[in-house]
């Protein structure tokens, strides 16, 4: 189960999967496939407050905190972005706030998707990563505040 794998382990897994592709078309085909398979987010979550800003396409991101772990759900109206989100969820969801905050996410560069982190793309992968880390930080601070009470 992916829950038991560490974030670096999952990152390595994705890098290995992408090493099988020689062409950009194949890489994108795979990302699009992941995007299509990402479970649809219930309409009740598709609110302005859940939108990730800085995206040319619309991205909704919601999080949940259970037993010390953060879980993410997300959706987008663009399928390549959905594929990218799907990978981020696979890597980050189900880990502790500290693990998420410290995640290096070097796999994005290793699979050649750094262009999506660039400001010019404005598809908000960067904004998405920031938002996920912000959620983790918020849960961490909330827990710490609870413990000191």
């Amino acid at each position, binding site marked *: 189960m992916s829950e038991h794998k560490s974030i670096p382990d999952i990152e390595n897994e994705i890098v290995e999967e992408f090493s099988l592709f020689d062409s*950009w*078309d194949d890489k*994108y*085909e795979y990302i*699009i496939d992941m995007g299509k398979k990402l479970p649809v987010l219930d309409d009740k979550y598709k609110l302005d407050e859940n939108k990730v800003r800085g995206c*040319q*396409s*619309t991205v909704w991101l919601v999080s949940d905190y259970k037993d010390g772990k953060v879980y993410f759900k997300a959706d987008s*109206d*663009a*399928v*390549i*972005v959905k594929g990218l989100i799907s990978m981020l969820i696979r890597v980050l969801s189900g880990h502790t706030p500290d693990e998420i905050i410290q995640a290096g996410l070097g796999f994005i560069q290793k699979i050649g998707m750094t262009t999506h982190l660039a400001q010019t793309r*404005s*598809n908000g992968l960067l904004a998405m990563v920031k938002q996920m880390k912000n959620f983790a930080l918020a849960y961490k601070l909330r827990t710490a505040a609870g413990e000191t009470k």
Partner: protein
Amino acid sequence: MIPTNTISKELDVYAIRQQFPALNRKVKGHPLVYFDNAATTQKPQVVIDALVDYYTNFNANVHRGIHTLAEEATAAFEASRDAAKQFINAASREEVIFTRGTTEGINLVAYTWGRKNIQRGDEIIISEMEHHSNIVPWQILCEEKGAILKAVPQQDGVLLMDEYKKLLSPKTKLVSIVHVSNALGAINPVEQIVELAHQAGAVVMIDGAQSSVHLDIDVQAMDCDFFAFSAHKVYGPTGIGILYGKKHLLEAMPVFQGGGEMIKEVTIEKTTFNDLPYKYEAGTPNIADAVVLKAALDFVTETGKEKIRNHEVELLDYATEQLVQIPGLRIIGSAAQKVSVASFVIDKIHPQDIGILLDNRGIAVRTGHHCAQPLMQCYGIPGTVRASFAMYNTKEEIDQLITGLQKAIKMLL
């Protein structure tokens, strides 16, 4: 019958392409197909050379030094103003002001003419197809002055002139309309817009960012009061543009920015301002790019605007013909008069996905709202895919776009 010399009427596109070094590069292993010309055009070698020449041979500050380099730089800077004057057929060189680009030109008018002349309750008319740069400066002005901003509605890329007539009233102080829509390519009837506005006693500003490269611009025939455009969309450098204004308006307007160059005499108590056009050119201007603007305008004029236009219209017709055959594809904006911009959406596919996959094949298009969100809201779409064609584009490249689109659609659906 005397045979007409058709060769001279046609653009030798392959000779033209040789002059644009950027077109030789590859993107993701494919030869670049550059269809983002409405955002900015690539630069011909003469423009690149002119920039190098300026910094290599006569870089100096303008209007001040008495040394040779300063004289040469000043002469080139002012020759460029004359070239711009000719390009838009302004009545005098005093009416031609160097700016950073169209956006700064519009802001200059809003901050100077606008602040002086707009009062509480006055009305400013724009249209639904404006670029944000012809919306936001007027919103800021209206907010500051308690004035009202109104927008002429459009339908399928055509301004509704009857609605425009209804909006005009003695309260209308300014009309600021885009000559050619950046998102759709529609050409607006500016002469008629200006005439109607003048009848209502309003001043008219025309946003020429998209029109200057495609259409013959004659600000005197158009009779607009202000006209702004950017060099970088006319094969010139970024960071330089022109604001045209009628002399009597420019003379009566307050200054924009204070500093050197725009003054006649300064004491600690008071400053007298310089004459036109320097009154609006505070500080050391962007001399290099201003000088190079002439090379760009000369290049376009020498190539022949009509020839370029015929070629671009042919490309647009060819592209439109091919595009509409793609199942689920819908062209946005069906104005009869258009420049070479094809803006479209495809059922069930986000424009961004198309843009990413086309880039993968070396094809550069623009996707998104094109800084015209109110227009996209009219259509109820998040944005479009926009392919915009320039003098150096070919039908073969359009074929590649079509193949790229078909492949992208297959991957995405």
